[in-house]
């Protein structure tokens, strides 16, 4: 309908990168790299747009989580949270950097 009012449709740029973080190592490496500058400079902050999608039948949790760091304006990272959640639960691993990115550090992680 808005298009009928002459508004230009918004779409992904042709050179836009969608990076699929399909393993825990990729997630950990990506997020630790994103946040590395914060370790070096305590006055620095990071802005990132985020979103999540989940399948209709899911009552809780999300299926995928998208992160677009504003420092990399041509890239979106997509994490298949639900898929990795099963793998990580099995090996009792934790997405440290991802959780650190997403929330305040929980005291038990704050070592």
């Amino acid at each position, binding site marked *: 309908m808005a298009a009928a009012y002459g508004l230009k449709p918004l779409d992904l740029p042709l050179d836009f990168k969608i990076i699929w973080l399909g393993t825990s190592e990729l997630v950990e490496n990506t997020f630790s790299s994103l946040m590395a500058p914060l370790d070096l400079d305590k006055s620095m902050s990071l802005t990132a747009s*985020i979103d999540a999608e989940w399948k209709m039948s899911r009552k809780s949790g999300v299926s995928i989580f*998208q992160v677009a760091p504003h420092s990399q304006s041509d890239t979106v990272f997509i994490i298949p949270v639900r898929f990795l959640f099963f793998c990580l639960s099995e090996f009792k691993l934790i997405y440290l950097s991802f959780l650190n990115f997403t929330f305040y550090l929980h005291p038990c992680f704050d070592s």
Partner: protein
Amino acid sequence: MISDRVFKIGSAVKGDLTRIKKQFDQLANQTSFTVIDLKDYVLRRGILQRKESGSLEALVGKVLGMYLSKDDVLRKNDEWEELPLKPELLHYAALDVLTSQLVFEEATKVAPLDQVEIDTPGGTQVSLLTQEGGSIIAYGRIASLQPNSLGGVRVNVPTRSRLVVDIDVVVVPSAAVILHILPQSMSTSSQKTKAGAYTLGQLLAASSGPTFQIVTPVTLLAFNHHNVVSISEYVFDHKIYIFSHQNSPSLSSPLMQAAGQVQLPSNNLVDIASQELSSDSEESSLDEGEADDNIVEMKMLEAHTESTTRQKGIFYVILPAIFYLIILGKVKDANRMLFKMSQLQHLLTHVQFFMK
């Protein structure tokens, strides 16, 4: 602690993070987020009005002047966990988050509105608004101490959206103080406002001093930069008296503070009153019900007038005021009538001041 320096931005982003939190047992007790909700961000810059839609599509139109196609079939899909993800789902997911980034970056170019915040210092002069962006109903200062609750009203709520304000000057006594809900026993039809809350006038009457405290949503506060109400419009129902006053805590009451700085000569008040008498004359054709009401009002008015006259000894200024109340002709019940009489008393205070 690093994540408090990672600002997560998105449309209705808290809902997404809440769902993720439930997915990770380790985060079950976590309550803190560093998030920026796009709608709030755009509202603070005056690009969007609170009543308008804050959906991502709406924000794209408002902020970017573009059109975002949101396919409901893709969004409400059951294939978000089937790997590999279909290209159209990947595209949808990537576009959604890129859009949020573009809206945020564009909105950042607009300076935020000068708004009272939860951490605005105590003592700051503020105006209390009838609604967000609405007219001024009182003047006051942010209280120096912000308790957890005040008179049974919680101040320290999880959303950190309320402040205690010292009210110095009531402009509209009949305005509701929305967080101060009337107790059930007092919620009779004649006393309660639409919001079922106390009015500023009721709280002023219940206070022991000239200044009283209220709890209010921060969104109903605006800066009163000048610390001076240079031209205040004190609205007594249909009647508007215009005068200048400067807030002065040393004066005995908020209305006396106003009276203490009145600059118009007293005959100006009379002039305004007489203009209103003539303009209201067209309302003189009342129906029978209203006429009955007026008889009751007249009797109460007479009784009140006699006592006031004895008490104040200024009978000669009460008569015009009585005439004004008769002309009003819209007071529906005794409580309302008594309230008008208290307003009349304030008016008399002003007039007394002029005559001195």
